[in-house]
C-alpha cells in the first residue's frame, strides 16, 4: 500500500489527538511539567504529520477521506491538498514557538493554558481539512471557544473589555456565517464543497448566498472595513496569546476565502474587482492606522491588517501567478508577524511596557533581540534577502501581469510606509539611550508579576554577588549603577527561531515557491479536489 492510501483514514487523527491530549492535559491538576510535555509533544506530532502531508501532496495529489466511511454526498469529507498541508505546517511551527514563549513567561503554567491551545489546534486542523461549509462553521467555533478562554485568562488581569469586543464581534460574524450557510443550502441544496463546485457561477442566487458566507469570513479575517475589532482586542492580551492568534484566526479565515472562492465561485472573474478594491483599501488603511499608534504591539497589529490586504490580492487576481504569490505571502507573513510579536513581546514581558516613548537603547542592552527584530522587520517591509522580498516582488509582478497598475502602485506605496513604521519602532525602542527609570520600572514590574523572591533567584542566577543583602538587592544594584535587568535567553529563542525561518525561506525561496505553485494549481483547477472527494 502506498502512502496516498494509508494516510487518508488517518486524517481525523489530526483533530482527534489534540482534542484528546487537551482533555488529558486539563485532567492533570498539579504537575505542570506533564502539561508542558503533553502540549509540546502533541504540537511536534502535528508538525511531523503536516510535513509528511506536505511531502505527499507536493505533486498536486489530493487526499480525501469520508469521515465514518459514509457514502459521498452524505458524509463529511476531510480533504488535504498542498494548501491545507502547508498552512497546517506553518501553524504547528507557530504553535510551538508561542507555547515555548508562554512557558518562558510562566503564563503556560496556568492549568488550562495548554489544554486551550491544544483544542485550538484541533479546531484549526479541522477547519483546514473539512470539505463541508457547515462543518467549517463548526470547526471555526471549536477554534474560537478556547480562544475566548485564553483571552479571558488574560482578561482577569487586564480587564474584560478586550475579550468582550472579541467575543461579540466573532459571535456576530458566526451568526452571519450561519445565515450564509442556510442560504447556500436553501439555494444549492448541499453544503458539500465538492458538490458545490461552480454553483455560484450557474445560479446568481447561490452567488448571493456565497457572498454572505464570504462577508462573514471576511469579518473574521479583519478585512477593511470590518477590521476594527482586531486592533482593539489583540493588543489587550499577552504577547504569547497575540502571537498565537495572529498566526491562526485571521489566517484560517483567509484560507477559507481562498478555498471557497476556488470551489463555490470556481474563480469567477465577475466579482474579482470587488476583491481588488477591498484589498487595496485594506493595505492602505492598515498601514495608515499604524502611524498614530504608540506601542509596539498596536503598530504591529495595524500592519497585520495591511498585510492581510496583500495576501488577498492573490484571490483578487485568481491567476496562477497571483495565487502562487498570495499563498507564498500568506505563509511568509504568518512566520514574520509571529517573530515580530515575539521579539517585541520579549521586551514587553521583561521591561513591563511596549510603549515606544518609555523604551530606548535596546540595541546595546539586548543586541540579540535587536537582530531578531531587524531581520523580521526588514522581511515584513519586503527587503532582500528575506522571504518578504520574494513575496512582495511576486505579488507586484502578478498584479502587473494582469495590468492592475493601481493595485501595484498601492502595494509599493504601502511597503514604503511599512518600512517607515518599522523604523519608528527601531529608532524608538532600539536606538537612542535608555530612559533613566527603565530598570527601576522593569524591576517594579517583575516584582509585581512574580514576587520579590523570584527577583532574588533571578539575580542570584545572573550574578552571584547580588545574593547577599536584603530582598531588594537588585534594586540597590540599580541605584549603584549596576545592571540588573536583562531579557532571558528563553524569551529570545522562539522569536529567533522564526526569524531564521524567514531568512531560510528568503534564500531558499525556490522550495516554498514551488510548493505554493502546486497549491495555486489545485485552487485554479479544483478537478483533483472534486475527484478525490467523490472517489474517497
Amino acid at each position, binding site marked *: 500500500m502506498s502512502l496516498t492510501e494509508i494516510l487518508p483514514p488517518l486524517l481525523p487523527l489530526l483533530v482527534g489527538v489534540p482534542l484528546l491530549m487537551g482533555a488529558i492535559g486539563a485532567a492533570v491538576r498539579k504537575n505542570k511539567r506533564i502539561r508542558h510535555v503533553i502540549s509540546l509533544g502533541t504540537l511536534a506530532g502535528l508538525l511531523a504529520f503536516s510535513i509528511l502531508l506536505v511531502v505527499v501532496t507536493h505533486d498536486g495529489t489530493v487526499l480525501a477521506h469520508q469521515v465514518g466511511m459514509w457514502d459521498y454526498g452524505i458524509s463529511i469529507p476531510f480533504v488535504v491538498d498542498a494548501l491545507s498541508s502547508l498552512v497546517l505546517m506553518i501553524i504547528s511551527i507557530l504553535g510551538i514557538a508561542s507555547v515555548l514563549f508562554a512557558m518562558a513567561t510562566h503564563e503556560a503554567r496556568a492549568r488550562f493554558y495548554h489544554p486551550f491551545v491544544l483544542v485550538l489546534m484541533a479546531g484549526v486542523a479541522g477547519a483546514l481539512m473539512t470539505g463541508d461549509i457547515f462543518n467549517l462553521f463548526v470547526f471555526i467555533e471549536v477554534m474560537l471557544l478556547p480562544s*475566548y478562554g485564553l483571552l479571558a485568562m488574560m482578561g482577569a488581569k487586564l480587564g474584560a*473589555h478586550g475579550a468582550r469586543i472579541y467575543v461579540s464581534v466573532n459571535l456576530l460574524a458566526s451568526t452571519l456565517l*450561519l*445565515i450564509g450557510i442556510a442560504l447556500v443550502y436553501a439555494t444549492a441544496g448541499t453544503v458539500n464543497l465538492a458538490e458545490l463546485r461552480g454553483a455560484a457561477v450557474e445560479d446568481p442566487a447561490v452567488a448571493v448566498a456565497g457572498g454572505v458566507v464570504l462577508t462573514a469570513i471576511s469579518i473574521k479575517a479583519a478585512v477593511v472595513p470590518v477590521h476594527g475589532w482586531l486592533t482593539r482586542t489583540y493588543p489587550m492580551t499577552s504577547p504569547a496569546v497575540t502571537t498565537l492568534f495572529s498566526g491562526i484566526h485571521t489566517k484560517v479565515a483567509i484560507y477559507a476565502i481562498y478555498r471557497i472562492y476556488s470551489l463555490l465561485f470556481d474563480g469567477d472573474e465577475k466579482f474579482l474587482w470587488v476583491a481588488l478594491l477591498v484589498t487595496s483599501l485594506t493595505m492602505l488603511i492598515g498601514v495608515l492606522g499604524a502611524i498614530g499608534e504608540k506601542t509596539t504591539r498596536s503598530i504591529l497589529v495595524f500592519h497585520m491588517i495591511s498585510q492581510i490586504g496583500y495576501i488577498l490580492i492573490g484571490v483578487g487576481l485568481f491567476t496562477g501567478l497571483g495565487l502562487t504569490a498570495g499563498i507564498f505571502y500568506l505563509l511568509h507573513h504568518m512566520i514574520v508577524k509571529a517573530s515580530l510579536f515575539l521579539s517585541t513581546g520579549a521586551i514587553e514581558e521583561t521591561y513591563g511596557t511596549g510603549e515606544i516613548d518609555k523604551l530606548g537603547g535596546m540595541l546595546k542592552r539586548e543586541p540579540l533581540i535587536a537582530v531578531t527584530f531587524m531581520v523580521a522587520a526588514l522581511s515584513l517591509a519586503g527587503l532582500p534577502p528575506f522571504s518578504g522580498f520574494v513575496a512582495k516582488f511576486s505579488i507586484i509582478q502578478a498584479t502587473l501581469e494582469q495590468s492592475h497598475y493601481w493595485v501595484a502602485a498601492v502595494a509599493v506605496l504601502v511597503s514604503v510606509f511599512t518600512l517607515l513604521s518599522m523604523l519608528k519602532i527601531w529608532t524608538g525602542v532600539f536606538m537612542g539611550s535608555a530612559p533613566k527609570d527603565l530598570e527601576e520600572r522593569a524591576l517594579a514590574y517583575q516584582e509585581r508579576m512574580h514576587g520579590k523572591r523570584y527577583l532574588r533567584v533571578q539575580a542570584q542566577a545572573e550574578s552571584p554577588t547580588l545574593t547577599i543583602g536584603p530582598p531588594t538587592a537588585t534594586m540597590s544594584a540599580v541605584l549603584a549603577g549596576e545592571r540588573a535587568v536583562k531579557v532571558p535567553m528563553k524569551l529570545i529563542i522562539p522569536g529567533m527561531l522564526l526569524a531564521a525561518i524567514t531568512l531560510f525561506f528568503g534564500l531558499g525561496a525556490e522550495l516554498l515557491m514551488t510548493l505554493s505553485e502546486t497549491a495555486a494549481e489545485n485552487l485554479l483547477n479544483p478537478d483533483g479536489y472534486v475527484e478525490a472527494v467523490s472517489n474517497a
Partner: protein
Amino acid sequence: MSIAIAVGLLTAAAVYLFMQRGMVRIVLGFVLASHAANLMLFAAGNTAFRDVPYIGSGEVGEQADPLPQAFVLTAIVIAFSITMFMVTLAITTTRDDDTEDEEESPAKVLAPGSTADTDDAAFSDLDTASGEIAVETYKDETGVGQPNLEHAERMPKEEEK
C-alpha cells in the same frame, strides 16, 4: 411567509439591542439573532414537509429534510455556550466597563457592596490566580483606564520555588 416575518422581526430586534450600551442587552440581542439564524436554517429545509424523515416510514415527498434540523441542533448548542460565556463576561467587571452606570451594573446588583473586579468566582476557576500573567499598561479611549495595579497586587502570588 410567517418564517420570513419572524426572521425579520427577530433580526430587527437583535440589531436594536446590539446598538445599546449594556452588555446584557447585547447578549440578549445575540440570543434573538441566533434564533433568526436558526429559523433561516429551518426555512432552508422547506417547512412544508413535516413527516418523519426515516426511510420507509412515509411518502418521500412528505418527509422533512433532516439535515437543517441537525444543523440547527448544532448551532443552538454553540450559540448557547457562547451566550453563557458572554453573560459571564458581562458581570465580571465593574471597573473599566463602559457599558453601564456603575450603580446599575449587574455586578453591583448581584453583589451589592462589593467592588470586586474580575477576581471573583467566575474567573478563579480558570486558574489564573497564580499571579504569573502579564499585567499590561494601557489606556482606554477615555484615557482613564489606568493599569489594574491594585488589583494585581490583590492577586495571590505564587513564589518561585
